[in-house]
């Protein structure tokens, strides 16, 4: 999808014509500096982590209380005004991209941790609290919050819920959805709902499970309850280098096949290894095609025992380098390289485009080979980092936005990669979300009927389609139209089905 071809909902001119009145009404709800309408001050909000797309909102509102969020939404609902929720704006799929006729609802002032409850092992936080701040707040007792996106110093827990974010540890500890117990949600009507709490599972439909990963289309999250875990006693990592990505992929399968679920299992290909090593000097071997970092965590008796097994599996898989961390510094150094992969690639190219497909792991060699062909076809380099345990690929396509045509080529390259992921049995996005970026590829994975069923959920939460329109769904059907029941004639009986 190129920038040119991205169609966002047609701007509502009637709403724009009333801008002054709308700003005044919002100021009455959120006084002081909580409403921003000057162009210069709205600039910081014009894009999220997908910086190729930019759009100024109609107005920015930064509420501080649930009551204000509710009043803003109720006003917008009554007046047919669109709303785009935003956390820290680190989305890589354009989920928080503003719309020109919409209120951008920034949740950044919801910064308080409301409760730390060690006995029940939960933290209740406002949505603007950063992911890392949740872990930091409980670190003194040796606890942490498990999902750890690489953006964790910046991204918010509200954004994590909206995107169902993951991290390098989610193979063992799950994604956001597996670690959230409750939330307070404000619907577009202004109605305030509580879903879940400190207890496990829903008593009725799992609405919390639906809201998690809904990309700001169903409601605005104003409070989140997450589960925290005690830090493992120890963690050690092993670096394993291979002469081919096939061997590396086979090794990942063999480790899991042997019944071992590492705390983290990350892979990098040659271009990524070289970019990272030049930047971080993590001591990565440069004469390998693929590098695995396998981290085991738990009591030292377990870690030592499993490390030995991993080492012997790696050697059986023809590893050319096997290096176990011998100190905490060395373990952190192994990770420093992986964690700096994006900025490292940023150093060797003016721009890069980060993809996020997931594939059945066995397809890795095929997908990497096809990516090399595509790289030649589009004349652009690609470096791969890969959450190897769960098959989540992050190809980084290198381009230069100042060279005419390169961005378009990068996007076409990315689209072809994602289509390939779907073709081999995988999916369009493992953790970054659909947003605007993958929106128009949804029909590659879903039929009209599949998408209509998803949209019926949207209708149950937001019938007028005012919350974050233009994201996730390639076409938004009217709820009235989706509500119709099509009875197929001739189906009033059960002709062919065995009946007793």
């Amino acid at each position: 999808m190129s920038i040119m071809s991205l169609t966002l909902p047609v701007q509502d001119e009637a709403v724009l014509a009333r801008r002054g009145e709308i700003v005044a009404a919002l100021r009455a709800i959120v006084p002081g500096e909580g409403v921003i309408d000057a162009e210069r001050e709205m600039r910081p909000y014009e894009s999220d982590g997908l910086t190729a797309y930019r759009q100024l909102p109609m107005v920015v509102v930064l509420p501080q209380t649930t009551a204000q969020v509710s009043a803003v939404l109720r006003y917008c609902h009554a007046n047919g005004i669109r709303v785009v929720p935003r956390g820290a704006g680190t989305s890589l799929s354009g989920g928080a991209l503003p719309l020109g006729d919409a209120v951008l609802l920034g949740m950044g002032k919801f910064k308080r941790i409301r409760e730390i409850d060690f006995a029940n092992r939960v933290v209740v936080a406002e949505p603007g609290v950063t992911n890392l701040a949740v872990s930091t707040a409980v670190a003194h007792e040796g606890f942490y919050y498990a999902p750890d996106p690489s953006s964790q110093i910046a991204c918010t827990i509200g954004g994590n819920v909206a995107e169902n974010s993951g991290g390098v540890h989610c193979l063992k500890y799950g994604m956001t959805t597996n670690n959230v117990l409750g939330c307070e949600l404000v619907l577009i009507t202004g109605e305030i709902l509580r879903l879940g709490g400190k207890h496990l599972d829903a008593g009725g439909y799992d609405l919390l499970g639906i809201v998690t990963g809904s990309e700001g289309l169903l409601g605005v999250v104003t409070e989140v309850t997450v589960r925290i875990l005690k830090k493992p006693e120890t963690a050690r990592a092993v670096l394993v280098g291979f002469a081919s990505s096939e061997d590396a992929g086979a090794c990942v399968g063999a480790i899991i096949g042997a019944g071992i679920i590492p705390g983290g299992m990350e892979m990098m290909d040659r271009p990524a290894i070289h970019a990272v090593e030049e930047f971080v000097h993590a001591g990565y071997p440069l004469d390998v095609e693929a590098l695995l970092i396998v981290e085991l965590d738990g009591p030292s008796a377990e870690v030592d025992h499993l490390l030995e097994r991993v080492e012997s599996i790696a050697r059986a898989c023809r590893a050319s380098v096997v290096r176990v961390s011998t100190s905490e510094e060395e373990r952190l150094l192994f990770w420093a390289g992986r964690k700096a992969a994006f900025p490292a690639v940023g150093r060797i190219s003016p721009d890069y485009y980060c993809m996020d497909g997931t594939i059945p792991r066995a397809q890795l060699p095929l997908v990497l080979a096809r990516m090399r062909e595509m790289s030649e076809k589009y004349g652009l380099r690609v470096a791969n980092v890969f959450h190897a345990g769960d098959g989540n690929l992050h190809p980084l396509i290198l381009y230069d936005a100042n060279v005419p045509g390169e961005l378009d080529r990068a996007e076409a390259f990315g689209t072809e990669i994602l289509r390939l992921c779907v073709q081999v049995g995988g999916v369009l996005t493992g953790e970054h979300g659909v947003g605007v970026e993958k929106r128009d590829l949804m029909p590659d994975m879903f039929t009209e009927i599949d998408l209509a069923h998803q949209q019926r959920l949207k209708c149950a939460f937001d019938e007028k389609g005012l919350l974050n329109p233009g994201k996730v769904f390639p076409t938004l059907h009217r709820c009235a139209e989706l509500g119709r029941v099509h009875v197929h004639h001739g189906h009033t009986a059960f002709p062919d089905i065995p009946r007793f």
Partner: protein
Amino acid sequence: MDILKPRDAKDVEDAVQGALGGGHTLDIVGRGTKRAIGRPSQSELTLDLSGLTGVTLYEPDELVLSARAGTPIAEIEALVAASGQELAFEPMDYGPLLGGPPDAGSIGGVLAANLAGPRRIKSGAARDHFLGVTAVSGRGETFKSGGRVVKNVTGYDLCKLLAGSWGTLAVMTDVTLKTLPRAETEGSVLLRGLDAAAAVRAMAAAMGSSCDVSGAAHMRRDGWVTALRLEGVAPSVLHRQAALDALMRPFGKTEILGVQDSRALWRAVRDVTPFAGDARPLWRISTAPTAGPGLAAALCDAELIYDWAGGLIWAALPPGQDTRGDAGAAMARAAVAAAGGHATLIRAPAPVRAAVAVFDAQDAGVAALTRRVKEGFDPKGILNPGRMWAGV
């Protein structure tokens, strides 16, 4: 009551369309082991999915399994066990509790009821392992969601919606789940004679340690026993057992259970075996662990089992106690309203289940949203009407 027995997914679609066109309602049944849960059926036709069987994909190295919805759970558990794997959410078996045989349920039923076991506190419930689904909604249309990979955020997660929807939104025909390696061994640390408050404190201390406890229950077995389970590779279990034993000493005298006894104990906790084989009204209550003892105290003379470190309470009402004829509903609802969480009436005579709220009494906003979701997926109300709530 007529029974329709589809042979394949296409038959299911035809059946739902037929019901839609003919104005019939359908009772959706997997293998029928949990039919006594929920409000009694109000349908004239039964859609029996027990003919949709077979594992269609199992790749242990990829941690993934797909099966037709009517496949016996026992068949799936045996298959994955042969590769050293399991369904990590440890789905409980309602059979014996409801007077039926053990090991008789279907995978579709496991998911529709969002089952879990003692390991819920570490590894999640069915919802957390449900990767993909193909289903027929009450609109008579086949849709899919999710996929066969463990990491996926493409579109709304309709698997979550269907997990725990008890067949009221769509009829699942094919499902994909995550499988995980089974622990090589296990052991348990026991404490005897604690009261509920002390037991919950002990379990909180255990859960808050780095011992990676995978089960924490408090129940009667010749007096009250508080049990803590450790699973993993042998050296790790031994190491953690010693650490946990030391950590639990201040709470009382400890005992260690070896692998066989530990397995038997946790199977009993999972299936609530002490309450099987009788007909007492039985409640299942989920709450914050520290709220458990207080909540339970409000249930008068109910006999109790605490799982999930105190957060899951099974409460069986003594015979004769049910003077209101509501299976203790008023009492249970009031206790849950005060403590937070939700309660489900798992076992009671059909007339009682028809008369009282069996599932969570939702507040107005959530109830209205629930109704809108139901209308979206089953606008004519033909799938398990009224099974969860009257009119839904």
